[in-house]
């Protein structure tokens, strides 16, 4: 009887912990990438986009979604190599025009996941859909299951 109570209490305690308590840190580990990308925005994990997307993004830093994010060639090459190495393995199949997306927010699963999920108030606080950490507190560690 006592054993059952203890077991039950433990199960209840475990269930009450946030889902990401035991998740490992899946965030970006490369310091240069963290510093340079993170100077302006949340450091997105490379696994969101396939290699060709990262290559395209890194070849046009002078116009980085409307911003000038130019880097010296040494840093640019190093960061691109890290992103490509850790990129999503498969390209997206459903892209009709043959180009892979460069905006994570335009990926079909992303849109599906967020449909009717973000209130006007939350959006105002976040400012942009690219500001993952506004709602997903563990986003920098690659943890998004807290919604």
């Amino acid at each position: 009887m006592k054993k059952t109570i203890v077991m039950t209490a433990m199960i209840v305690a475990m269930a009450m912990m946030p889902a990401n308590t035991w998740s490992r840190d899946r965030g970006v580990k490369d310091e240069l990438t963290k510093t340079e990308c993170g100077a302006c925005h949340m450091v997105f994990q490379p696994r969101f986009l396939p290699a060709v997307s990262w290559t395209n993004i890194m070849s046009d830093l002078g116009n980085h979604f409307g911003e000038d994010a130019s880097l010296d060639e040494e840093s640019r090459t190093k960061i691109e190599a890290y992103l490509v190495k850790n990129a999503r393995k498969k390209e997206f199949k459903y892209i009709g025009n043959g180009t892979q997306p460069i905006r994570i927010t335009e990926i079909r699963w992303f849109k599906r996941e967020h449909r009717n999920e973000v209130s006007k108030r939350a959006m105002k606080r976040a400012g942009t859909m690219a500001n993952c950490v506004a709602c997903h507190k563990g986003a920098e560690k690659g943890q998004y299951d807290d919604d």
Partner: protein
Amino acid sequence: MKKTLLVISTAVMVALAAPAFAGAKQDAVMDHYKKLAKGSFSAERGKAFYSAVHTGGKPATPSCTSCHTKSPTGTGQTRANKPIAPMALSKSPDRFGDLKKVEKWFGRNCRSVLGRECTVQEKGDFLAFMYSQ
């Protein structure tokens, strides 16, 4: 004795006129621009440059203040909603200590705000203003 007092009071006045927030690294960065410049730098001109609404750059960011707020002691915000630490050295004493980083940001932001590279004079005036704040 009188002379000593005079020297001390003069030193205090000079110190008050030009508050010294800059460390050795910041001085080295300023020296780099001083060597390239023809004249001297002015914090007043830097202030005007910082506050001015420029043309030629991107419409969303016509001024330094677009992202860095009206006062260099304010906390700014990037377009992706990340905070930008104040530009003023009194608030961010580690700023402007790395020439490579300073040049990187002058390059990006001058092209965004003015649509061109900044001149040595503009950079020096800008730094003089930030060093004084």
